[in-house]
């Protein structure tokens, strides 16, 4: 492989990785936008989404097959289920805390994360679950670059979801309400906007996106684990901060930037792949120090 091929490969890998980061980061940033909460349970919803997608696919694969079509249906159902789970979590755990000090709700989020992780741990006995699907390893060769169909489908699916979200936020009534709540929730209430409902919708969409990422990651990588949401949760948080937390285009951009930074950073001579996480969290610290608002974040009042 020439240096150019390595670069091309890592750009592709970064794109795939960045798509996952971006999907999870979107939920982080949307939820932060409406209730100013860093939802640390968000990575675990990605894990739950993976498991539900797997259960659905196992149930329907005899009818629709285990290819991308089956995974697509499993992903939709998983998004629906985890979306509702997100709404339920918000209602039970976060809603009563909304007027409490910020630290209380943050600690609640950590507790929710522990509950989700340990429930999965208890149900799976801490074992890795194989995500069986019929995805082949085929692909096309572009020069020295080998792109699998799976990678193409994955990046395309992530792009479609993000475009749909962008459309929802900028062109629908709920999207407008969501942006308005992000700017000033109290004012929205005074103007007759059902803020609680807007928060519910935000949790639904954010959680559903995490579930979509979880199902696709499970199918793409082939295994599920109760702890798989932890690291990606942190990475998505990093991505959201890089893009400017609270900003939806920022989360998309931040996810892709982080994916690419990681992929390329590990190929710098002297920095092995074991430094990957150090690399991304060092970037997080640098962003927090030098540009706390992130790439696309604006002033404190104008989130989202």
């Amino acid at each position: 492989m020439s240096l150019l091929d390595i670069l091309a490969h890592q750009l592709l890998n970064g794109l795939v990785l960045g798509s996952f980061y971006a999907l999870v980061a979107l939920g982080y940033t949307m939820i932060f936008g409406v209730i100013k909460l860093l939802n640390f349970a968000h990575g675990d919803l990605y894990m739950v989404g993976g498991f539900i997608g797997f259960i659905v696919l196992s149930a329907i694969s005899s009818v629709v097959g285990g290819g991308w079509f089956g995974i697509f249906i499993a992903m939709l159902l998983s998004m629906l289920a985890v979306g509702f789970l997100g709404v339920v979590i918000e209602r039970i755990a976060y809603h009563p805390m909304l007027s409490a000090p910020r630290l209380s709700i943050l600690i609640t989020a950590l507790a929710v994360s522990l509950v989700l992780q340990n429930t999965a741990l208890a149900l799976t006995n801490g074992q890795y679950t194989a995500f069986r699907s019929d995805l082949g390893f085929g692909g096309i060769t572009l020069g020295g670059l080998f792109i699998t169909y799976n990678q193409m489908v994955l990046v395309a699916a992530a792009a479609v979801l993000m475009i749909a979200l962008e459309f929802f936020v900028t062109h629908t009534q709920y999207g407008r309400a969501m942006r308005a709540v992000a700017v000033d929730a109290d004012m929205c209430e005074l103007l007759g906007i059902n803020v609680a409902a807007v928060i519910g919708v935000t949790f639904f969409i954010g959680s559903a996106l995490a579930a979509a990422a979880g199902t696709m990651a499970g199918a793409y990588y082939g295994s599920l684990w109760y702890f798989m949401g932890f690291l990606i949760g942190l990475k998505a948080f990093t991505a959201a901060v890089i893009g400017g937390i609270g900003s939806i285009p920022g989360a998309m951009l931040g996810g892709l930037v982080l994916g690419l930074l990681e992929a390329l950073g590990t190929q710098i001579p002297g920095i092995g792949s074991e430094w990957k996480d150090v690399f991304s969290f060092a970037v997080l610290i640098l962003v927090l120090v030098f540009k706390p608002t992130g790439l696309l974040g604006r002033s404190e009042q104008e989130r989202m």
Partner: protein
Amino acid sequence: MGILNKAAAAGAVFVLVAGSAMAQGTLKIGVQVPTTGSEATYGRDMANAVVIAQDEINKAGGVLGKKLTMVIGDSACDPQQAVNAASKLVSQGVAGVVGGYCSGATLPTLKIYGDAKVPFVITASNSTKLIPANPGNAFMINSTGDQQATKATEFLASKGVKTLAIVNEGDAYSQDLANLTRDDWTKAGHKVVAFETANKGEQDYSAIVTAIRAANPDAVFWTAYYADGALLIRQLRQSGYRGVIAVGDGSNSTKLFDIAGRAAEGVYAFSNPIAQFLPAAKAFIKTYKAKFGNAPGPYAPLTYDGMRLLAWAITKAGTTQPAAVIKALASAHNEEWLAGPITFTKHNTLARSNFIVLEDKNNAWIRADK
């Protein structure tokens, strides 16, 4: 006849009976395995193997004209419990001990058996830490970690591999195996072109895959556990890598296939001698299944060998005198046992590794060497 005489006669009969029992006699063999606690499954499996060996030896006339009886000492995979179990076995006057599962629990018992001069055949514990702690009476018949590296080097070289990439997971076990293999491989005159460490629990190994593809080695050796190994294998094959892939004994679980699926086809795995892959173990598996209702576990063949090796050494020594038995054990020279030939080094470890090589054919392990 007075009462006194009657008593004397009865006494005489008693002495006679007791005397003949003694002449026929039994020979106690200690079995130190965990029969309770988290590792109890393995311990019971090892004890079962000893039962089979004992029955066979007794049926063939026993040892030195005496029947063998086993006394179990439960180590519970716990150093403290193991010490108690060892002291109990010693105080019961065992002629020798077989077993030893958890290395951590076996370690402190070495001194107890050493002080009592009881021959000890260790059949599963294989930490290299046991070697310097051995007072000379213990013999390890399971290959140690460095022997897996030797076997890996031997086998991969025999497959025509010249350049190797080694991937570990940063933990003590996999890093150790990776370093040992790197040393062995370079000593054998070949090249290690990539030496990578994966982050445990990470799903995406694309960075490592690209580094490996860039180095383009003939083979990739994964030294850590199956769950992440399966992910790496899948992503390597997905990227179009066509070379040899081998995994260490932490990855020889069939769960590797569950996760890696078809990508694991043709992957080689190193393994301690498991009964189903030993041509000599067919009868043993049959007896085991008939007696205990399930297939023998991973350390059954070695523990069976351990019991028979001890019996063989006592027979060869012609006495249960510890020094003579230990000398006889040390003199073992390439006799064929279930799991292969046994010859000891001067450290009482196996001179030749008994690791076997498995290959994935249609998502099932088959024997790849021999």
